[in-house]
């Protein structure tokens, strides 16, 4: 896994990326960049190519052409696992948590720490998992008292925090979220926006897709608007307005 990139330095670059599914050109010559400590929102109408873009970045799809650079070095992934191994983590909409397991067990799912009981018997190191859960969640300013409860006991926003916490624990540099607030109530949406602020403060890069301009203006530094697979525009949030973004999305 790579070193943390200094805040403001380029973390991830996408250059002239295209992806077609047979005759369908889902992405066409797209270029964008994410810096360390920067939140980039992807916006665009349905079918604009947002999901295709993040799937190409996270190793789900192989690009048809173009390149992806992480900290200046070209990378390519045969699987999402490979992308994750070098620090690009995707938070899936359906969260990918095992509801019956604790926060710690979810953070360590698939890479559980072991210890030796009685000096010889390998057993799961639950204390270590609980400890990591506690410190990671605290890092996200999310204070849990119930470290032995299954995550099904927590609310949607809390569960989102667990999924993000897992990525943070494994030191993800880039977090990608496809509509992280879509399934949540208003207070929970706020909490997720706060989580994204935390990730930014920690110097990570965040890419998130949202149809909610409110959310985008609340947390993003920049917005990249897609339209039918091409980049329709890119703006700094501080220098644009809802109206302008909507115009870019619909074209006109």
């Amino acid at each position, binding site marked *: 896994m790579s070193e943390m990139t200094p805040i403001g330095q380029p973390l991830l670059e996408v250059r002239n990326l295209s992806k077609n599914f047979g005759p369908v050109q889902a992405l066409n010559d797209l270029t964008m960049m994410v810096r360390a400590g920067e939140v980039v929102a992807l916006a665009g109408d349905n079918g604009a190519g947002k999901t295709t873009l993040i799937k190409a970045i996270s190793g789900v799809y192989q690009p048809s052409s173009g390149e992806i650079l992480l900290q200046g070095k070209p990378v390519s992934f045969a699987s999402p696992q490979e992308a994750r191994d070098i620090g690009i983590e995707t938070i899936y909409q359906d969260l990918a948590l095992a509801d*019956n397991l604790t926060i710690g067990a979810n953070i360590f*799912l698939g890479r559980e720490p072991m210890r030796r009981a009685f000096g010889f018997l390998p057993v799961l190191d639950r204390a270590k998992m609980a400890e990591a859960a506690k410190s990671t969640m605290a890092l996200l300013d999310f204070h*849990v008292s*119930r470290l032995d409860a299954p995550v099904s006991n927590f609310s949607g926003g809390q569960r989102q925090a667990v999924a993000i916490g897992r990525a943070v624990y494994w030191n993800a540099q880039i977090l990608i979220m496809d509509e992280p607030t879509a399934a949540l109530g208003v207070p929970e949406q706020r909490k997720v926006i706060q989580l994204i602020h935390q990730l930014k403060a920690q110097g990570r890069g965040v890419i998130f897709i949202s149809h909610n301009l409110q959310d985008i203006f609340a947390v993003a530094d920049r917005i990249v608007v897609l339209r039918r697979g091409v980049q329709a525009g890119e703006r700094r949030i501080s220098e644009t307005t809802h109206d302008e973004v909507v115009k870019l999305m619909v074209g006109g």
Partner: protein
Amino acid sequence: MTSPPAATSHVAPQADHADKARTVLQRVADLRAWLFLAFLIFGFEIWSRLSFGGTFLFNPFNIQSIAVFAVAPLLLATGQTFVIISGGIDLSMGFIMGLAAVVAAHVINWLTPGLGFWPAVLLGSLVAVAVSAIPGFINGLLVALLKVPPFIGTLGMFGVARGVAFLLAGGTTVPVKNEVFAALGNGKIYGVPYIILVTAVFVLVMHYLLGQTRFGQHNYAIGANAQAARRAGINIKWHLLRLYILSGMCAGLAGVLYAARFSAGAAQAGEPLLLDSVAAVVIGGASLFGGSGTILGTVAGAFVIAVIQYGLVFINVAPFWQFISVGVVIIISVLIDQAQRRFSGGRQSE
């Protein structure tokens, strides 16, 4: 991972109360099999004192008979617990047990003249357990690689194992001519039958495997959310393959102990036990939807069934009441599971 957390709001502290109530309820539900068991034993104790002034619980003969009675269903049920937690079911275990009993009988008979009593017993038992891994392996291939639903795949294996077992047994029971095997199957040490000791050790190992290892942890994760497990990098196919081999071998061990106890192999040895094993798991608190269950719960579940079956005979009630009582306990268990599921699932669906 070193930057300090910024000052922000606190997450819903009022949720903690509800969480505690929920956890207490979960604990009670988790312990339901032990509560059933205590209730049943208490009931039989009262009944036997009132009706003939004797004791039920404090008679070592009763305890031992119940334990011996529980051995085979419990062995099947421990394997079944793993499978059910993973979200599957293994319907073939009963006949894999019969197959293993027949194989053990044949191999021991075949080896005894050449090798002597002890080597024949050891080798024969090993071969029988190893053979039981074959149908388990095929179940695993069907479920893991060919994506056959476990209910269907293992139902097919139910038929195949049954047929093979009866063919090997020539349609009858196969008596074992080896006095060491018989002695082991019926012998005791300090009053405790060997087969109970073997079972107890095995159950402890399975308890460890489920509760303390990655294999067990992944089993829970797969049962709750297979997609999440896959995304976390868990090799689900490989896990399921080993899982069904494990359940096949549990049945194999049950078959060997059966053959030792009765000094005979019979294809139908496990036939009535399959449903008991599923019932034990369900009474023990596992959900047939997968994701929950424990070996200790299953132990209690198996004893609930054994106590009902033995106790009703003990107090001289027509044996058909067994079916009714076990059935009622299963239904109550499932109702508790569903109530609990609704209660703790409420948040998720919001």
